């Protein structure tokens, strides 16, 4: 019964996600949804390293962009199929992360942040400087859409609605893989290293090895997101290595909920759709968006998903207590309880203030 209660919302959400291109016939929003799924994959990869290994990297778009450029070069210039491009992207990014990991993962705190920024800077500048290969600032053009099958009979993902399913499929597979990884022995190791590196080391968990596994896994998933992005927009330019992507993906993970599995996907919805809602603010859009994010970081420390989980947990506790007392435990009475609690806080505050000012008045007299 409890199992059915948990799986039903997931099935409903999946059903809505699969039916969306048929019920929401707005090409612009479909385009946004495809980008959202791609960015959600990217955010999951970022969360894998930030949330489960505690390493704060600001160079994650380097892997995203390198994956995109790798597949773009072999498919657009050498006419390889996109499937091989995926293998090339994963291979290049994996090997790159392995090489970078040796110096980078031994650094901690701000040093690690700054070396990842240096990595992003060098990759971005190379993509600009080697314009004979990458097309420089005018971009790498004509990256083909992926095709499954041979010749004219293949299934071609060149339209937005077809690509929607490809991106969604990749997101689901990535999510399940990360879920499996986190609940496996390796994932336990990640969390042990995150929570106390020295203790983990003394228990026989080699922190460097686990960090390396997490770093490479995170980089490879970013590379896959880059592959999807390159084949979706068909053109890549050095702006994929810009700071904007770093900030976007950071906000997705932090606003959604760091160190939770659904958090990055929730965060992707916030970061993609809040600016759309704010379109009516015209030129002040960025300002209000930044204000919103500032408020969310200050008032929801655990992100939206963490906030929801916390409320749910409080509700369960309250319910158990009420049932133990033999009282009814429905939602209306819970809301009344919450209201009373907040009202109590307000009256506490006002009485505190009143006492404070009365005391001040006494002292004056």
């Amino acid at each position: 019964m409890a199992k059915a209660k948990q799986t039903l919302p997931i099935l409903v959400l999946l059903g809505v996600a699969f039916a969306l291109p048929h019920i929401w016939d707005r090409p612009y929003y479909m385009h946004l949804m495809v980008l959202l799924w791609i960015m959600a994959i990217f955010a999951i990869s970022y969360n894998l390293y930030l949330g489960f290994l505690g390493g704060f990297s600001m160079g994650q778009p380097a892997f995203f962009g390198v994956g995109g450029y790798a597949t773009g070069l072999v498919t657009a210039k050498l006419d390889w199929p996109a499937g091989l491009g995926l293998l090339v992207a994963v291979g290049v990014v994996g090997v790159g992360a392995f090489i970078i990991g040796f110096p980078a993962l031994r650094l901690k705190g701000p040093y690690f942040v700054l070396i990842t920024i240096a990595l992003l800077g060098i990759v971005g500048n190379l993509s600009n400087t080697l314009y004979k290969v990458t097309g420089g600032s005018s971009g790498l053009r004509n990256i083909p859409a992926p095709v499954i099958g041979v010749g004219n009979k293949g299934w071609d993902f060149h339209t937005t609605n077809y690509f929607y399913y490809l991106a969604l499929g990749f997101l689901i597979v990535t999510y399940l893989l990360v879920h499996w990884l986190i609940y496996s022995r390796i994932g336990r190791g990640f969390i042990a290293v995150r929570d106390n590196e020295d203790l983990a080391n003394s228990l026989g968990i080699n922190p460097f090895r686990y960090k390396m596994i997490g770093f490479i896994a995170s980089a490879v998933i970013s590379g896959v997101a880059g592959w999807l992005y390159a084949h979706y927009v068909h053109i890549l330019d050095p702006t994929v290595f810009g700071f904007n992507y770093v900030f976007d993906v950071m906000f997705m993970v932090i606003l959604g909920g760091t160190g939770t599995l659904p958090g990055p996907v929730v965060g992707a919805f916030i970061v993609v759709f809040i600016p759309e809602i704010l379109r009516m603010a015209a030129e002040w859009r960025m300002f209000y968006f930044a204000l919103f994010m500032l408020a969310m970081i200050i008032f929801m420390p655990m992100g939206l998903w963490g906030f929801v989980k916390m409320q749910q947990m409080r509700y369960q506790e309250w319910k158990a207590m009420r049932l133990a007392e033999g009282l009814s435990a429905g939602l209306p009475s819970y809301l009344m309880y919450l209201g009373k609690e907040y009202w109590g806080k307000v009256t506490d505050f006002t009485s505190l203030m009143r006492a404070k000012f009365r005391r001040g008045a006494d002292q004056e007299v």
Partner: protein
Amino acid sequence: MSQFDLVMQQIINGLVQGSVYVLIAVGFTLCLGVLKLINVAQGHLYMLGAFMTYQALEWSTSINYPMAIVISVIIVSFIGLCVHYIGIWPVQRRGEIAPILTTVALAFMIENIAIIVWPGSGRSIETSLSDNVRNPFGQVHITDQRVMTFIAAISLMLLLYLFLQRTRAGKAMRATTQNQMSASLMGINPEYMRALAMVLSAFLAAAGGAFMGPLFTILPNMGLLYLFKAMIVVLIGGMGNVPGAVVGGLMLGMMETLIGGLWSAAWVNVAVFGLIILILIVRPKGLLGSKGI
């Protein structure tokens, strides 16, 4: 122009450019040392420093360039204080990531306001100092503005050095950098030191912007670029280390102008980042290490 003159010209330009990088990076490194955080809004405070100088000169003809610098520096220092109390102070006990994100949000807000207030394709500050050209030797050209920028940056650095070494507040700030807990046991309020470090770093960034404004076109979206420069300088010199930031800033300025002037502008950034990777592998804590400010 002979080869020697060309090299000398690039070195002089590099020193001037580097001295402005020093101003931004020293503020950045003060934040890193005292508040233990990466202040993403630093580049935007620099941008505001340049634009406030421009605006002060626009307001009235009776305001001359030095007065404009003073006005700009005061306003931007106050904005720095606001950044601290709106963005950093509420989340300062929440690890290293939340303050970075709040400063990112504040940087976006500052940039958005600047784009609305100063739209278009950039502004330039006109001062009489830019017209006086000196020829110290050969065919080397220096404008008075560049001479003034270099001298002002060096004297600000000397003042900062005296402040940190000789005054009570400076010593308290160094103590806070070394160990916040024992500093607060000695009767130093770390809260004041954090706010003071933010104000000082905003002050230095604004001064950099005000001096650099007349040399280049100023744009509302140049903040991130200069933030990037500050990060590079700190990586070269060592984190939370003021002398390191001075060395790193001058090195970066000279490298940029020498490689850009003598070889190719396209390879400047690649060379700079290559140097950084090398430094991080050989001396991960920067050239001068990271022991105190």
